[in-house]
């Protein structure tokens, strides 16, 4: 850089690392001097040596201690965000302690099988964790050069995912849901059935190949007790609990705490994945609640609001969470993320799903219409997408015809659905004979391909074969997205009915 010149001799070619002098960093400072309290924030008189992002403890006259974080700081005041909320805090006799470090979490292999609250404290009545390390929950950005491209097929046993929106190890693939839709069941089914199928192994259904050890890190943000309980008992039932780490912030818990929950979960996940070589599946639910907490803080700061009151930096903030998924070169482990969010009014252009979709590597969208028609899991394949699909499928990974058949199923389903719409207005008679075939295709697609039981675990072969069976409804010359050699090999016309 040009500025190198100002600091180093021009021939300095060695890299240099600057470290903060430790004594500056690790000193604890105390102050009585709370000036203002508004929303989840407090304005405190400045003390020397306090830094941005520092962890604080707010000590109330009652002896109560609440934790917080420095959001902004000048030489006269410090703005502190209080995780547990400011309810019951006055300006008298409140001592604010600055801890001289950022927010950290203790990590250890023993976290597996344990439940923590939204502050990262043990919440299952068990013994405390003896930490191997304490890690800053904000992490550091992954250097893009250090990333290994995710390309290993994960079989979830669910046709709409494996066949059309394939999940690969190290991907971040959210579920966009709506209030009352069965996203929890879908996520639990993924967590239960997900396994890696190495090339060459036999791909038969029902999990003939061993689960290659997915650990699960589960972060709940503002979800109901029932929903959290559903996941926990699911994990218990299937034995997944002993390789799971849970962070739970429920609907009645302090909202601001939610800002730290996914970061704690991902810090734990990174430790498991990149230091203990595990493959980690991270489930974050519900990111809409998370974003609302961010909006609350932003509003209290009187920042210029972006769309629907969410702060302009929501994108960047979400990215610092989602981008913590992936694989690293030279590391055995990986982090696969399934964030869940509910779309207010089922609207995918709402800022939370919208910005999420701009960051994640695709999305699985649940549809209320399908749900109401009794199709389950109600995955609407048309707006769903896995951006990493193409690198995870094909010969040696799933099957040679996978990409083509997937494209063709999409095209045919889209055409069938628009023909169906037309038929609703004008009647079947207005359709051309070919379009009538498409309508039949799309109806059977919902019933036979999308629909599957909660415990039905289909191999990818089965999934692709169902696809071919349905494409048999259409004349061969309609199947333009499929290479002739695969048509030759797999296409069987006319299994109608």
């Amino acid at each position, binding site marked *: 850089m*040009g500025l190198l010149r*100002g600091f180093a001799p021009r021939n300095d070619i060695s890299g240099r690392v600057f470290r903060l002098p430790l004594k500056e960093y690790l000193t604890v400072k105390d102050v009585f001097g709370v000036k203002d309290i508004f929303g989840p924030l407090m304005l405190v008189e400045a003390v020397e040596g306090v830094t941005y992002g520092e962890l604080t403890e707010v000590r109330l006259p009652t002896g109560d201690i609440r934790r917080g974080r420095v959001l902004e700081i*000048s030489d006269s005041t410090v703005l502190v965000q209080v995780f547990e909320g400011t309810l019951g805090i006055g300006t008298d006799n409140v001592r604010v302690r600055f801890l001289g470090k950022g927010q950290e979490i203790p990590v250890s292999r023993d976290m597996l099988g344990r439940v923590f609250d939204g502050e990262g404290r043990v919440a299952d009545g068990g013994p405390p964790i003896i930490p191997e390390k304490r890690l800053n929950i904000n992490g550091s950005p992954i250097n893009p050069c250090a990333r290994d491209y995710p390309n290993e097929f994960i079989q979830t046993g669910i046709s709409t995912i494996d066949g059309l929106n394939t999940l690969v190890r190290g991907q971040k693939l959210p579920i966009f849901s709506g209030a009352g839709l069965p996203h929890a069941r879908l996520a639990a089914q993924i967590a239960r059935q997900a396994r890696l199928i190495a090339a060459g192994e036999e791909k038969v259904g029902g999990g003939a190949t061993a689960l290659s050890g997915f650990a699960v890190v589960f972060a709940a943000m503002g979800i109901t007790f029932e929903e959290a309980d559903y996941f926990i008992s699911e994990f218990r039932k299937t034995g997944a609990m002993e390789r799971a780490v849970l962070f739970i912030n429920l609907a009645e818990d302090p909202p601001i705490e939610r800002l730290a929950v996914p970061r704690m979960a991902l810090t734990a996940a990174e430790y498991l994945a990149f230091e203990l070589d595990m493959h980690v599946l991270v489930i974050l639910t519900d990111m809409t609640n998370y974003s609302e907490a961010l909006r609350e803080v932003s509003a209290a700061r009187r920042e210029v609001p972006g769309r629907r009151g969410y702060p302009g930096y929501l*994108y960047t903030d979400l990215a610092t969470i989602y981008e913590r998924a992936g694989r690293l070169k030279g590391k055995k482990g990986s982090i696969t993320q399934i964030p869940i969010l509910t779309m207010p009014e089922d609207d995918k252009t709402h800022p939370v799903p919208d910005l999420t979709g701009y960051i994640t*590597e695709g999305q699985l969208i649940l549809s209320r219409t399908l749900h109401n028609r009794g199709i389950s899991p109600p995955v609407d394949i048309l707006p769903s997408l896995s951006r990493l699909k193409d690198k995870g499928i094909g010969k040696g990974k799933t099957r040679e015809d996978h990409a083509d058949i997937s494209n063709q199923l999409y095209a045919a389903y889209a055409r069938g659905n628009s023909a169906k719409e037309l038929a609703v207005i004008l009647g079947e008679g207005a359709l051309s004979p070919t379009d009538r075939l498409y309508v039949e295709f799309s109806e059977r697609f919902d019933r036979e391909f999308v629909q599957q039981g909660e415990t039905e675990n289909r191999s990818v072969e089965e999934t692709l074969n169902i696809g071919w069976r349905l494409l048999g409804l259409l004349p061969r010359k309609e199947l333009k997205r499929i290479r002739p050699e695969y048509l030759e090999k797999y296409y069987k016309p006319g299994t109608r009915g």
Partner: protein
Amino acid sequence: MEGIITRVAGPLVVARGLKETKIFDMVKVGHLKLMGEVIEIRGENYSIQVYEETEGIGPGQPVYPSGEPLSVELGPGLIGAIFDGVQRPLDVIEARMGAYIVRGVEYPSLPRDKKWHFQPTAKKGDRVVPGDVLGVVRESPLVVQRIMVPLGIEGELTYIEEKEATLEEVIARINGRGVSQYAPTEITMLQRWPVRQARPPRQKLPPEDPLVTGQRILDTLFPVVKGGTACVPGPFGSGKTVIQQQLAKWADADIIIYVGCGERGNEMADVLLSFPELKDPKSGRPLMERTVLVANTSNMPVAAREASIFTGITIAEYYRDMGYHVALMADSTSRWAEAMREISGRLEEMPGEEGFPPYLGSRLATFYERSGSILCLGSQGRKGTLSVIGSVSPPGGDLSEPVTQATLRVVKVFWSLDDRLASQRHFPAVNWLTSYSLYQPAVDAYAGKRIAPGWKENRKETHRILQREAELEELVRLVGVEALSPEDRLIMEVARMIREDFLHQNAFHEVDTYTPLEKQYLLLEVILKFYTQAQEALKRGVELARIIDLPVREEIAKLRYIPLTQKEVFQRVIDKISEQL
């Protein structure tokens, strides 16, 4: 003079006591010595945007001035490199510091120890002016870097020598006007340029030749030219990044600058891992040998994202000045605009539309205005071009938002990506009814001469058929398809062929991914031949159903997968059309 921090708010730091520091100067912030840039001065208070995460920075900590504006290093070693938004070498940082980006690290952007073979093209005694080429260095098997006389220096060459030299060794001396009046100016292969300032050309020229991308809908219907500008707005998942990467792979430019601005880390990893494997269609060499990457992903500091666009375009201008055809892809300019918005918000500036700063439009314009076709600086009459293609990520896919609208006011080509097409997996999901290119006349003229005289007619006919299809679809929605005349139903059938057998293009198919102009022409020619002959057949009383069921149609559909080396296949299909009709 060293300053003292008085305020920290996220990426914005305010300091006092920086007296001699000028606006846009670089500074080092806090004990961690984080990189920053002064972006506002109000009396005593200097506002600094910091290019690294500011946790651990606080009032009372020092700020060190550098006395220089944010600049990039220019010289051999750029090709094949990957930089962050402020030109830190990410590969070097990874090798030395590991997988995560550590703060406060400092490495030179270009390697100092590497020796390059400098081959003079000027000789002692020559009079040279800024922009004149002194000599060349083979930077990669695909790129010869031309070492030019820096701006502000001219006179007589008193020394120049062929040698193996590092970036900082003297390769030439110029006696005359220069840095010092008393001694000859020493020239090295390393130059610096402040990123916020455009590098001057001798003259701007009107762009004329197409930038061939091998993407059928782009080249045939909505072409961009070398030195032109284009934008790709679309909601998430509509194919912006794939289009940008396809252009980076196949566009017939000499140099590609790919700026990943606030987008996914894995997309950059994809480019890094695949470009060394992919072959340039012209030379057969790995694509990485003509590519420079600037990667400031969404999780990297937001102020450096703001700088990344300028870093990228300055490197691009440098190669343009050598006389190359350069293409820059910026994915996504919306993230850049958002970075501006965030900094502006922290400065508590008066917000414009949707919180964006009021200068959003003018910033976007200055960026795109750095594109163009030029006569290069210097006395040697080289021509260079710099094409700029920016993605736009409108919230909710709503094109009325400020970034899209401000972009449309400056760019000449609009590739509008359509959610509906993307959800049917019709890719590239470029909407053929709303997209446009203002370069069409220039490209018609070029292709009419170089490819086929019928180019323009075919293109217009294609537009017409697609337009007509949209009208007929409206009608069908009201009365059903059976109510249309056979002629109209034929049009709809042909439009479908155009969509499925020509416009749809699979980026992941080995042949389909790239279509040369000549093949683009042939494909359309075949479909339109079919159309005219089918029309005649209808007039003769042949039934539409029979025409639609002709076996030759399946063969037409397959043509896109036939490489141009088997040109006879195209002729055979044309013959079959005549036979069967």
